């Protein structure tokens, strides 16, 4: 367990605070931010990467830490942590404040369903920001994050892997990073 820091009404592990960008620390913690930043400078998170097997079209693939985009298919993920169906600010708040806490208890693969439908306003900005937070979570906790989405989220440039399935001439064809997988 990473060292706990109590700030205001909440306790954070130093590992959790590593997920925050400097600007987020300043905006949320105000004048305490420089103190936290100083504390975080000497913190090194050394976790073994978590690899998870996922099933798709009868095949099995190995997911490594990072953010994977899935379009047109549902992976068979055992024991994944599914992000609750929150929308807008509540969704972002969960990703930055609650998801790392859940991973502190047990590191697991994370799954986010219908990312493109999680924002009712400022959709494009919301998607980029949530993916940025998820990338930081995946990087700090070294877990795979699976994001289900469509065209809007697919544009983002930092996915570690892209899985796409579509119906072609009546059969389902799936590709991983553009390489044919099945169908």
């Amino acid at each position, binding site marked *: 367990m990473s060292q706990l820091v109590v700030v205001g009404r909440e306790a954070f592990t130093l590992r959790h605070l590593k997920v925050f960008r400097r600007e987020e620390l300043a905006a949320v*913690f105000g004048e305490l931010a420089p103190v936290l930043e100083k504390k975080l400078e000497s913190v090194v998170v050394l976790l073994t990467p978590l690899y998870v097997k996922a099933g798709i079209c009868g095949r099995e693939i190995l997911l490594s830490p990072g953010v994977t985009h899935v379009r047109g298919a549902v992976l068979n993920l055992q024991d994944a942590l599914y992000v609750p169906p929150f929308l807008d600010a509540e969704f972002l708040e969960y990703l930055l404040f609650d998801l790392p806490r859940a991973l502190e208890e047990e590191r697991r693969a994370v799954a986010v369903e219908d990312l493109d439908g999680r924002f009712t306003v400022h959709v494009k900005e919301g998607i980029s920001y949530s993916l940025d937070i998820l990338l930081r979570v995946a990087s700090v906790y070294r877990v795979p994050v699976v994001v289900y989405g469509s065209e809007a989220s697919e544009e983002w440039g930092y996915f570690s892997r892209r899985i796409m399935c579509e119906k072609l001439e009546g059969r389902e064809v799936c590709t991983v990073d553009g390489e044919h997988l099945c169908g």
Partner: protein
Amino acid sequence: MLCWIPVREVVRLLAWVERVGEREVSLTELSRNARKAREILELLEKHDLVRVRRKGKVYLISLNERGLELLTLLRRAEELLRGAGAAPAVSRPPVQPAQQSLPSFASDNPWLAILAERGKARVGV
């Protein structure tokens, strides 16, 4: 003194700068092959792109200012390429100093302020 760097070396350097990113990585994360990891580190050090510190037996590598500048240029190039063929480039106003460490998507992103407000109310600082 200016020196000529082969294109292949530039491409390798850019790939490793992108891989390190804004994180602090250990040698093993660069490559599980110790010899290759050393070789990468030497290449990055030769061009003064990284800083290295030791924590116990672990060497930790992060980009220095030059490295971060290169990373920013690389991301800008990526954005330009992604936007190729779309709308013509419009000159942007200079970025405020406070926003410089934020990635491009974050400037003028309303969700940052909204989340900050919620975070402040939640933490109560």
